[in-house]
């Protein structure tokens, strides 16, 4: 009896592999393929590094080289974890990575794509870590509040993020505890960000510190925070300060401030106050004019343009010419007729200036033209045409030079000559 041919296993339907991003009909065998294993080997460590960055930055508090990512893609659950709440960055990501859904997603992923179930813990955040993080957040928020009551002035650290809730709390507590007559209008003034909060440091505009004397030359606060001392200000001065803050004007009280404000080094014994509003004001640069606020509604130019005006580096750049002009002049040197265009442009400029330009074109000038029945180069076809033109001109001239005379026979010639002889 002939042996029955081995029954082929039922063909697996087409499946889509998210890792390899293509369809296959290999079924479970696909995950043992080389390409798939390579892709898996690249994807898992990539996610692990993102997770470790997140963990390091948020749970342990140590600064990482990069700020925490605003959004994180979870490949196991196919979810984009976006943080809408800036007050607690990456909270969405942390809660998701600690959730049961994510754990299930990770297990399903590893089961489907291979990789070993022992990696599950390295691809999620444990509940202990979440609890530690929550505790840390609470202590941060309460610690900032209590810390300000003890110090005369807070440290400059929390001021980096003006949208940070603790910052606003700082300013409010200062008003309550240290400067009773101080107005809170400054803390409620919402100004557009005038300096980046991504860790970049920008030099402080000297105009901001003119009123504070030369002592602030060594001031090295990040983001150019301007400090206003409290202890040197009596209650009478607080009103002036109030006026300053409400109108965003430093120079208006310049001499008075100079008179009452000794030079204050950056690390001097008198701690300085920095407000969220001041962080913005210090970089206003030319926006320190007294009077109404200069903003979009009043039609004032944006502060980055004003800052650029006073920036000596930008003056240098502008003297070289606007970038747009340079770009338009940089035409492709290989374009058609480039040499001709440059020559002609130079001639036209000379003509504009009134200089003598030798006449390069005459009535016989013809442009470069490839003939309809062209058989050689364009120059040759042009020469051929010019030759035919000359021939045509010669012919026409020759025809014009011929005079049409009447016919005189020999008899007439003899008769005329005889009559002349007899005379």
């Amino acid at each position, binding site marked *: 009896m002939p042996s029955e041919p081995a029954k082929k296993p039922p063909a697996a339907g087409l499946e889509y592999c998210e890792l390899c991003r293509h369809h296959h009909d290999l079924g479970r065998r696909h995950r043992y393929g080389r390409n798939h294993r390579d892709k898996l080997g690249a994807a898992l460590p990539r996610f692990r590094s993102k997770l470790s960055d997140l963990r390091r930055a948020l749970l342990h508090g140590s600064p990482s080289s990069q700020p925490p990512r605003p959004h994180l893609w979870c490949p196991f659950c196919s979810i984009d974890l976006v943080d809408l709440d800036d007050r607690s960055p990456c909270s969405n990501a942390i809660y998701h990575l600690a959730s049961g859904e994510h754990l299930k997603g990770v297990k399903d992923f590893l089961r489907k794509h291979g990789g070993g179930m022992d990696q599950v813990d390295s691809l999620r955040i444990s509940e202990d870590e979440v609890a530690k993080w929550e505790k840390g957040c609470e202590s941060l928020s309460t610690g900032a509040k209590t810390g300000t009551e003890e110090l005369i002035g807070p440290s400059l650290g929390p001021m980096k993020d003006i949208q940070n809730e603790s910052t606003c709390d700082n300013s409010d507590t200062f008003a309550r505890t240290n400067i009773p007559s101080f107005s809170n209008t400054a803390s409620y003034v919402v100004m557009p960000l005038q300096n980046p909060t991504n860790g970049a440091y920008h030099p402080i505009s000297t105009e901001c510190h003119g009123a504070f004397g030369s002592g602030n030359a060594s001031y090295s606060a990040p983001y150019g925070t301007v400090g206003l001392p409290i202890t040197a200000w009596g209650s009478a001065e607080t009103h002036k300060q109030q006026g300053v803050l409400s109108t965003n004007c430093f120079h208006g009280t310049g001499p008075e401030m100079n008179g009452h404000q000794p030079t204050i080094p950056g690390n001097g014994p008198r701690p300085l106050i920095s407000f969220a509003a001041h962080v913005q004001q210090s970089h206003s640069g030319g926006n320190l004019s007294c009077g109404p606020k200069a903003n979009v509604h009043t039609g004032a130019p944006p502060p980055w343009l004003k800052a650029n005006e006073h920036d000596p580096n930008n003056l240098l750049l502008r003297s070289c010419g606007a970038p747009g002009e340079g770009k338009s002049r940089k035409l492709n040197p290989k374009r*058609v007729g480039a040499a001709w265009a440059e020559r002609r442009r130079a001639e036209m400029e000379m003509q504009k200036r009134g200089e003598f330009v030798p006449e390069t074109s005459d009535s016989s000038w013809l442009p470069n033209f490839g003939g309809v029945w062209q058989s050689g180069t364009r120059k040759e076809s042009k020469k051929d045409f010019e030759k035919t033109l000359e021939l045509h001109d010669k012919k026409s001239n020759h025809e014009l030079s011929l005079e049409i005379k009447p016919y005189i026979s020999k008899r007439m010639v003899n008769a005329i000559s005889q009559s002349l002889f007899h005379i």
Partner: protein
Amino acid sequence: MGSALLPTLRQKREVDAAIRDTLDKVFVLRFGRAEDAACLHLDDILAKSSWDISKFASVALVDMDSEEIQVYIDYFDITLVPATIFFFNAHHMKMDSGTPDHTKWIGSFSSKQDFIDVVEAIFRGAMKGKLIVSCPLPPERIPRFQLLFKDV
């Protein structure tokens, strides 16, 4: 006559000056007669699109009946009217549109956009250093004609 917006050139030196002074832009030169219907249609399209292409092209009309222009008619071998010739930096630009004559565009355009596309193709080719470009229009929108070699 011609369009009120586009300059009409009747003398050789005017044509020479226009070709020589148009730098780094496509120069479109239409040879035709104002009383011809196809010329009128083409003039209308040229006038309407002249502003749109003003940044990279300029357009001028040439009256074929003028005496001084006959040398250009012979040089460019213009037998059918209207004929549109393209220049870039005083160099003639050819276009392969599937017709027997690659040196000029015979007839009118079916729409403004067709003309703009043609000029743009020529400009792009010229900026890359090409003296002949392919026509971007589909064959059904290209006017067909027969070209006879010395009336043979």
